[in-house]
């Protein structure tokens, strides 16, 4: 049994997405002139956040299942 990669992957993008979204909402809007007036930080951050959420959800669900299966058989420590 080992670390399910979806968990670190999900958490990485949750954190990065959150950072980008907060920065996107609080930063000076004039920096978005170079990204064609689009608040690319907020939009990309939202995308990364949703991706991260999905990773944590699927990875976490698999971990819970594994733990339940273990508890059921009660053999593995």
């Amino acid at each position: 049994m080992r670390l399910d990669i979806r968990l670190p992957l999900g958490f990485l993008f949750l954190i990065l997405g959150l950072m980008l979204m907060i920065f996107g909402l609080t930063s000076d809007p004039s920096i978005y002139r170079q990204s064609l007036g689009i608040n690319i930080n907020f939009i990309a951050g939202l995308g990364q956040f949703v991706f991260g959420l999905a990773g944590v959800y699927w990875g976490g669900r698999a971990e819970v299942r594994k733990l339940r299966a273990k508890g059921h058989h009660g053999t593995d420590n």
Partner: protein
Amino acid sequence: MILSGIDWAIMAVYFAFVLGIGAVLRRYTKTSEDFFLSGRSLPSWICGLAFLSANLGAQEVIGMGASGAKYGVATSHFYWVGAIPAMVFVGVFMMPFYYGSRARSVPEYLRLRFDEKTRGLNAVSFAVMTIFSSGISMYAVARLIQVLHVLDFPFQRLGLPEAWIFHVSIGVSAVVVLTYIYLGGLTSAIYNEVLQFFLIVAGFLPLVCLGLRNVGGWHGLQSGLAPAYTHAWLGFGDARNNRMGVEWFGLVMGLGFVLSFGYWCTDFLVIQRAMAAESMGAARRTPLIAGFPKMLFPFLVILPGIIAIALPQPPAPISHAGSGTTMVAPTGKGLVPIKIDPLSGRPVMDSDGEPALDYDLAIPNMLLHYYPAGMLGIGISALLASFMSGMAGNVTAFNTVWTYDIYQAYIHRNARDGHYLMVGRIATIAGVMLSIGAAYLTSRFNNVMDVLQLVFAFVNAPLFATFLLGMFWKRTTGHGAFFGLLFGTSAAALHHGLSLPAGAIAGVKGGWISVLHVYPSEMAQDFWTAIFAWTTCFVATILVSLATPAMDERKLTGLVYSLTPRIKEDEPHWYQRPAYLAAILLGATAILNLVFR
């Protein structure tokens, strides 16, 4: 370039995850098979993404963007001709022998199939090659940090001399890669490759969207460029009519067959990722699953290069109030600046007397052009990630081949498993140290590196003929394989020594024996060198095999097609079956070629 606090914070979070994964995986790395082959326990989608990412080093991200700016959509040949068919072939036809034979490395397969000398030849040349490739990646990352002035500002603040930036960049990248591989072995490398894959998508997808929006979509891009830029196959009837200077036959045979199959089907760097899979089905699916993102990668890495060349010239260096970002060089074509000689500080001229363009800066300049603070941190992290995984892929392949195929085979045969695990960890340290040496060698003597890469090309070009005959013709013998390889490599060297690309001076570019033939481009010469090497190896292997006694067929079960029971594809769902995946992949690639013809 001055990065803001948010950019540094993003990079710090990413690096914390990279090292954290290594630290967590250390607990699961107990045997040598855990360390070198991830305990053969990973699901196919993870192996597939790692299979793709291990190849996604410096050359891929910066180099393919550069080629996009230079050659346009025709760069997609490196994917749709030069990768997908080979990935399908290795998954459907060759993986049963690699995975089924339980060989722990590609050289070990050669020992099982042929003999000790063929394995030794392959193991030693491969080990040397991986060290230099990882050194070149390390050199490239340090150069990029220098050219983009990433560390200039923090160095000024700390009062450190600017000359140290190169050393610090090399040192930091080496320590990071060393740490996570040392701790978690191949699993750690593979997990980080998956992270890196998604980070590259996260960093480049918004860039493509912004760029396309800026130039008015695909049609806007087409209308601003010559047709040769936006068509993959235009002018490939004759080498003189396309920007690559190659005709379709040289392209399909040289790149699509010899070089591509030689890399994707025999290079342990990628095969190792499939060997880590949890089952035969998962191992066969690994290259096929990698094929789907590979097929779409041109849109992510080539397109930004094309957009960079198509953009109108920026009027003056753009400077931004908040971030203080400035362009690297404001002249050139679009966002691609003129190449400056680092020694003289003057523009480099091409053979026509025009200033040459520094295409390698197409992608970095795109990031600087469109990304404000925040996304810039993601973009730079994605670039650094790609360089590191290029390095890590080579280091994991090196430590495995060194431990199993050189140390265990010739130095210390019957030790405990724990001993080989320790040797693997020491080999990781040694491999990274040697890579640092190679990186400095590259920075000192650029010519040495050119010569070495040439030698690697000679050694690699014939390899696929040996594997093809070995797997599909049971009469192939060890002597045939060994001497076929030697003849093939000699043929490559001979062809290179007798031909020259147009406009080049005899020497490292070719023609060092005498110039019998002039190719329209260096690419054409490379492809034809490969074709000659492959054909010579193929013919020589057959002739020598027929002249030497046949091998015992009982020992070849599981190693040769005709002596191995067929695999029944009994996966429960159709989308898990290699044959279906292969058909979809080939069909979709054919459609892409038609759409962008």
